[in-house]
């Protein structure tokens, strides 16, 4: 094959993949909207569920979901980022502990979510005495998305080149200063991407939450209350409640809208943060 033909084939393949995925994505969203939009109303976001979720709204479920995700974030961001810094910046590459830590995180990524659910139930709910609660659910999710977030963050930090690090060292910056002023700002877009991906994974999770944050669809009054997550609600309506399909689709669609807002928010925040960090550096 001559070069120009090969170039054209490669370009065409890239476009074809994008068009294919774009079409599937559009179809998926369209199908979900077709099923779910008719059940959208103001009541859906302000009322509590009635008749096993076939009527009423999902306000308490939205609040519980937000609290579960916040708990998860509060736990996974410091621990995940710390782990990433440890693996890419603190420990030297050839030490056994570095490899063992990294591999054990990868190992955790392969555990099915229902096992995390059972683990979370045994550990957070029973052993730590947190009971069925938003706290148990959020922490279980944090353990679950930790490998994804930590490894993606590690790659993000790693992607900051040797030159920047050497420049920082040559300027006599302390390592801590280097991390805050050089590494984190440079890695920020990739870190935000890692965060968005982890959040999506957490928001989509069902099996890990049934056994930890639970099934109670009442408005939570504290993090120690049980609270039904949106994905658990969707699962229950789709598989367990006859005639729950329309509400299941409506709730799933709402979850996507919320996620879209969170993602855009995270990205906007990310670019603002980056500007500020770079400005103060």
């Amino acid at each position: 094959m001559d070069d120009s033909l090969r170039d054209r084939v490669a370009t065409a393949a890239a476009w074809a993949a994008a068009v294919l995925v774009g079409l599937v994505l559009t179809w998926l969203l369209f199908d979900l909207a077709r099923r779910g939009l008719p059940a959208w109303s103001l009541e859906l976001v302000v009322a509590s569920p009635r008749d096993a979720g076939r009527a009423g709204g999902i306000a308490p479920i939205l609040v519980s979901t937000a609290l579960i995700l916040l708990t998860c974030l509060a736990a996974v961001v410091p621990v995940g980022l710390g782990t990433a810094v440890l693996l890419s910046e603190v420990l030297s590459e050839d030490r056994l502990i570095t490899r063992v830590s990294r591999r054990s995180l990868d190992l955790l990524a392969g555990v099915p979510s229902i096992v995390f659910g059972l683990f979370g139930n045994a550990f957070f709910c029973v052993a730590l005495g947190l009971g069925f609660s938003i706290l148990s659910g959020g922490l279980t999710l944090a353990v679950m998305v930790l490998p994804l977030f930590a490894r993606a963050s590690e790659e993000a930090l790693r992607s900051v080149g040797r030159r920047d690090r050497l420049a920082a060292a040559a300027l006599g910056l302390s390592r801590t200063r280097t991390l805050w002023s050089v590494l984190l700002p440079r890695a920020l877009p990739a870190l935000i991407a890692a965060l968005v991906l982890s959040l999506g994974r957490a928001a989509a999770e069902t099996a890990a939450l049934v056994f930890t944050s639970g099934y109670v669809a009442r408005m939570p009054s504290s993090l120690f209350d049980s609270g039904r997550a949106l994905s658990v609600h969707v699962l229950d309506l789709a598989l367990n409640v006859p005639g729950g399909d329309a509400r299941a689709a409506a709730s799933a669609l709402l979850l996507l809208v919320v996620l879209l807002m969170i993602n855009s928010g995270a990205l906007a925040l990310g670019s603002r943060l980056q500007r500020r960090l770079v400005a103060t550096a």
Partner: protein
Amino acid sequence: MTRLLPCLLLVALSLGCSRPDPDLRLILTGSSTVAPLATEIAHHFESENPGIRVDVQSGGSSRGVADTRRGLADIGMISRDLLPEETDLIAHVIARDGIGVIVHADNPIQRLSSTQLRAIYTRAVTDWAELGGAPGRITVVNKAAGRATLAVFLEHLQLRPDEVSADVVIGENEHGIKTVAGDPGAIGYVSIGAAEHDRGLGIPVRLVELDGVTASRTAVATGRYPMSRPLCLVTHGPPAGLARRFIDHARSESAHELAATQSFVPASS
């Protein structure tokens, strides 16, 4: 009262700070089939008893049994009879659930006998034409191991679990209904109430007559329909206090209406 207070404090501490006053909160765990009904009963109970909270958790019959035994739940929910090794628990039936055989709405088959059903599920018969239907391969939809519905079905047909050969194995009722609705050659068995409800919404499934008895909730209520299972609340020993009040409420007339709206057959009181 002066002696009760330290005791209560101790209980509260041992349960962790997450559990408020146990006199005001009731925890139910167990069968995902019972959970939606129990949630509705709990709403009703809470509205009649302000200040009381009833938390209903889903997770399967065996979880309900285990949690009730360990004291993690005040009341367990199971969608079957108690097993011989569970005599330490007491079951309180709150509703019944009939198990109906369903086919695709386009399937002309109207009735089946237990013998025919046994032939289908053991693959002695593999085409609808052999049963007088339109020619086409039979897709056998079975329930996953451990489910009460499977146990009732196999017991009625007098089959061992390893004698059944399936094309699709399903978990929940709605999974089974959607599977049969998507395959004109499929046959499955699900909760009669769920099938009636979904058929009413236009989903293309149909309940078939079993051994000459129409599969309906009425037939389950009168006891004429052969395949059904109880939905129970279970307690470790006789229920007392709040648990007792809740169970009484769950067996009352008003809860029977809730059972009917959730597509179950109210327990005969």
